[in-house]
């Protein structure tokens, strides 16, 4: 590969520095209409009245859409992967988060679109919202969805479970148990380019959609499913995304633009404001993670119990996938023979959460490494040595029964120590990821080198 190790100029670099890179908002199609959405001001409410006639009658308004205009209103982002749909494109009887879109208007200019949204008659009956995932399982917690407080389609279970080995015995045998609670919070992606979409009806009957999505084919599928159109009726044009970081996988504007464009028979653009980005766009999820490690006093981790609550916001979106990824990584770079993992996708009346850089993995990695440091502190051991001892090696199995072929835990931890000027003891300096033997293979780890657990 000629490129590896070479310093190549970015192929889009010259366009970036000369202002020639085209983002969705830079595409110019004559006759393009402006879009504004009617969004819920309430965290949780029933919609008791919705009347768009005054808005539709306004001069300059070319189309208004509500749930009634969407051929398949409730379509889950991961429906193709078997995750049941629970989120409407436009709210019907309920709104479950502040900012949830209920209707959208396409008009000749921004001011008219805004005025039309204000002219939509709507009434709500507010409900008590739930914002703390820890309270979601209380019997008197607000019921966001009729089926219960969490996403419940993990096979026969209502949460992601891993069971490996004999966790009870591990905790009985422990010299010390170290517990920690870790609560990484929501992060707003805040790309400098706001969500922007432009849908253009073609004379052929197809729709061309200019999109800032991070997943072109994915968003194409979502729009086609909502609109019940065959895929070949849609042409997606992507290009440079002005920052996404995971937040532009949500197909946030394309479907609404497409529906408005079909109804108005005009090109329609929707560019979110920075306030909409902060208040209504999806974020990285907040998590509540509890870890308890059963430890020997010389620094072996005999077993780990993990409880994870993932704040999915008002709808599932991609959260079921996040918790699954989270589950795979909850032992971190280390081999732990006895495992009890329970991960829940919990609903709250927040904006639905989504992917962000390392979706599901960053949160658990943070918790795992904090826990490892805590373990070392409680045991009075060197934090590097504790990590190196438990670090995964060739032939070790993970909690989800993957047999590791070439884990980089050992060299990476050694490199970390070197990078910050920590001198490791000779024994630890000389470690490699070769298969465990001798002192690195105590009895309790024998089961992890041979497959002996089960994943529910």
């Amino acid at each position, binding site marked *: 590969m000629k490129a590896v190790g070479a310093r190549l100029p970015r192929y889009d670099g010259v366009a970036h520095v000369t202002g020639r890179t085209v983002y969705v908002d830079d595409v110019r199609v004559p006759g393009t209409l402006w879009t504004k959405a009617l969004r819920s001001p309430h965290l949780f409410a029933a919609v008791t009245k919705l009347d768009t006639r005054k808005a539709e009658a306004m001069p300059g308004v070319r189309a208004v859409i509500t749930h009634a205009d969407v051929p398949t209103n409730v379509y889950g982002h991961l429906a193709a992967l078997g995750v049941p749909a629970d989120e409407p494109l436009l709210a019907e009887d309920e709104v479950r988060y502040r900012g949830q879109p209920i209707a959208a208007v396409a008009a000749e200019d*921004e*001011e008219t679109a*805004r005025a039309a949204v204000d002219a939509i008659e709507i009434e709500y009956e507010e409900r008590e919202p739930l914002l703390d995932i820890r309270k979601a399982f209380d019997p008197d917690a607000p019921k966001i969805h009729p089926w219960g407080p969490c996403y419940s389609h993990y096979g026969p279970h209502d949460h992601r479970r891993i069971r490996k080995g004999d966790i009870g015995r591990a905790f009985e045998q422990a010299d010390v148990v170290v517990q920690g609670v870790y609560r990484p919070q929501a992060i707003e992606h805040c790309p400098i380019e706001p969500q922007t979409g432009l849908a253009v009806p073609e004379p052929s009957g197809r729709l061309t959609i200019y999109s800032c999505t991070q997943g072109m084919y994915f968003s194409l599928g979502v729009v086609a499913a909502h609109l019940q159109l065959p895929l070949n009726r849609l042409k997606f044009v992507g290009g440079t995304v002005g920052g996404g970081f995971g937040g532009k996988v949500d197909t946030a504007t394309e479907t609404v633009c497409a529906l408005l464009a079909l109804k108005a028979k005009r090109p329609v653009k929707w560019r979110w*404001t920075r*306030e909409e980005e902060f208040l209504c766009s999806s974020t990285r999820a907040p998590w509540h993670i509890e870890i308890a490690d059963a430890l020997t006093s010389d620094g072996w981790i005999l077993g780990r119990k993990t409880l994870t609550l993932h704040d999915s916001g008002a709808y599932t979106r991609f959260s079921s996938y996040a918790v699954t990824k989270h589950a795979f990584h909850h032992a971190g770079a280390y081999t732990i023979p006895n495992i009890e993992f329970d991960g829940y996708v919990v609903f709250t009346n927040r904006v639905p959460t989504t992917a962000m850089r390392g979706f599901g993995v960053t949160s658990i990695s943070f918790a795992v490494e904090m826990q490892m440091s805590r373990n070392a502190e409680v045991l009075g051991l060197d934090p590097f040595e504790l990590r190196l001892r438990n670090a995964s090696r060739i032939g070790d199995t993970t909690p989800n029964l993957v047999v590791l072929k070439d884990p980089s835990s050992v060299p990476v931890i050694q490199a970390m120590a070197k990078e910050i000027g920590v001198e490791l003891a000779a024994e630890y300096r000389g470690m490699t990821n070769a298969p465990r033997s001798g002192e690195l293979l105590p009895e309790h780890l024998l089961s992890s080198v041979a497959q002996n657990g089960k994943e529910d």
Partner: protein
Amino acid sequence: MASEVLLPTSPAEAVAAFGDGAGVTVLGGGTIVMPEIAYGRAALGRVLLLARSGLDQVTRSDGAVTIGAAVPVAALEGGDEPLASAAAHVGDPEIRAQATVGGNLCAGPGGEAPRGDLQAPLIALGARVRSTGAGGERVEPVEDFLAAGGGRLVLDVSYDAPDAAGYAAAWRPHAHHATILAAACARSGGQTRVAVTGAGPHGLRCPSVEQALAAGADAATAAAKVLDDVDPPDDALASAWYRKRILPTLVQRAIEEAR
């Protein structure tokens, strides 16, 4: 939509155009009004642009300073304290070059951040505002102007350069500052004036602190009295609890700097 846009080319024209201020929106640099327009929140009426009004003069004579309403905030950097420190932390250089002293003085409590960072320093300096509006021209202390609630066109502010000054603030940790809380202090001869930013809807004078200092209290004792003068709010930037905890310390530092 603005019903009319007025662009006076002299102070006298600006005064005439403003009249009694009914139905008039004043646009100084635009840093406050233009976002309101962009977000569809401005009820504009007749809009008076000060860009060419000639209200952008700074005059200094024997320590008496007069700053026109349309003087950019950037012009105060490197000038008299505590104004200079407050000005240097407004937005970034581009914002400071465009935002005006008059606009900052008239900034209403905006969203979740106090926006009138120059108000407290001007109060501490004992500055007087010359304004026009219903009833004609008027000169009054800044704190009285702010308490009266607006609706007037600021023409200029004047103060006498102090003997010493102090400024202590808590900012969001970023180059692009949002001031959470600030204490401004200026001393001339035996009199010390103290005012704070971020403890109310606009800059507020602290008479209890000033009286304690006048009665001979030390900086810490006097500073503790600030909570008799203000009731800081809860907002997205900081809780009332946090503000109450650190405000006396900021006031103390400002007083000590002005020794």
